[in-house]
């Protein structure tokens, strides 16, 4: 199911999912631009018959289930001070987050 037209409501919904706040001007602009991009990528339907029996390739390195021992490497730990060093708002050693309710 594909639709080439991304409406302003679609844009608002996507922006909500992506935690982006957009101006009305941006919503209108993106509606046009995203629709244009979606139209272009619909070209892949031309390959439907060639890919119907193919699996997906998510990863080209051929690796899977790369694990490591659950061991702490203290030489690479960041101190609390370092970890907080780029936060705009901290409180007594904590990151401050916006209210959720």
């Amino acid at each position: 199911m594909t639709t080439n037209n991304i409406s302003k409501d679609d844009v608002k919904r996507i922006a909500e999912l992506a935690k982006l706040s957009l101006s009305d001007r941006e919503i209108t602009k993106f509606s046009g631009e995203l629709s244009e991009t979606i139209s272009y990528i619909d070209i892949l339907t031309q390959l439907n018959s060639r890919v119907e029996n193919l699996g997906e390739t998510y990863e080209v390195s051929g690796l899977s289930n790369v694990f490591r021992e659950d061991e702490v490497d203290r030489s690479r730990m960041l101190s609390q001070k370092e970890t907080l060093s780029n936060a705009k708002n901290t409180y007594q050693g904590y990151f401050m987050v916006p209210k959720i309710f």
Partner: protein
Amino acid sequence: MELNKLTLKEALEGLKNKEFKSAEVAADCLKSIEKLNPKLHAFLAEAPTDALNYIGSATGLLKGLPLAIKDNILTKQFITTASSNVLRDFKPQYDATVAGKLLDAGAFFVGKTNMDAWAHGSSTETSDFGPTLNPWDTGRLPGGSSGGSAAAVAADMCIAAIGTETAGSIRQPASWCGVVGFKPSYGRVSRYGIVAMASSTDSPGPITKTVWDAAYLLNIMAGFDKYDGTSVREAVPDYTAKLSDSIKGLRIGIPKEYFGGGVDGKVSQKVLEAVKQLEKLGCIIREISLLDPKYAIAVYTIIQRSEVSSNLARYDGIRFGNERSEFSEEAKRRIMLGTYTLSTGYYDAYYKKAEKVRTLIVEDFEKAFKEVDLIAGPVSPTTALPVGATTGQSMFGEMQDVLVEPSSIAGLPGISVPCGFSEGLPVGLDLMGPRLSEELVLRAAYHFEQSTCWHKERANG
């Protein structure tokens, strides 16, 4: 003496013969940056001159020689911004693995280079801090997203530079700036500590004045990293050791789909002349057929934007960085498209479909590499475009990178090597190989380079 104009090989020889010290090479680079950067804007941050005092006893493979490093690679010593206002004042608490390896090898980072914000682009025009200009013609763009690094090398503002490529971001600016740009196989060089763009294709790599220089830097950069879950374990050979080994009988495939109507006639001509040169050097040239790269544009657009929407979700302005409202339009556009293609009801039609076509592309190359050893083509359909070329083009990057997207999607190694000029602007030859065939790609590129003089041409800046 202008030591900034040396290649890495020349600089290392000069140091060995005690003709000069690394600090002098670095000083000349800083002088060049001071002179040229106000116009070219290749660097966002530069090392302070008193840092030169600490180069003295540097040893390792790089012995204190000056490199430029792209600003999406975390470095403790410099603010790292990925050319975005969201990270405008971000001070990394650790070095990327690749940065650490270079520093351990004695590199002196002369500065952080400009890029398209978040590596979203093929022009360096979409940097939040202003574009970089092409040293060959300052009315033109250097390409991107590693445009700052490529311009810095082309204008001799450093001895060599480090870039990253997701689909074209090393090879394309190297091509537009007339320098060597090597994208290793995905997983060959660690991505740990590099601001993630499309995690399934991002590959750091060297941008240099010569192929030998690229091979030498790859020796330092490549290798398994336990902090990168996609890092391959294959041993790292000495990539400089077999550069001069014969390439006679090497079969090089020329995909007819890569020389189609969308490629500028003069660019095609230069690349085909380069192929002729390879034939003179003993290679066997074969016309092959590959999946039309236009499909790779769609695949890449979907995969990259989907992965971007996920990777940029971490920029919440809480733990680091500024608010999401500081994202530029291009970043917002990509995040939105990616959110859409991953969302319920569209995931199968877009993301899953793209990953199936990706399988087709991977298999297409595997089939081709049964008939040929390497594949050659133009890096870019055009030479450097004028400043302003990206305006109003929501898919500029993807269209520009059409010829390199397939190999990036498949995780193959590829190198851009200068192969001539069209109306005074550099043209790059793209040589691609099977996964983990870096030695072969470098060897063919080396032979080609050494049999021509293109790599000796320098921009006036």
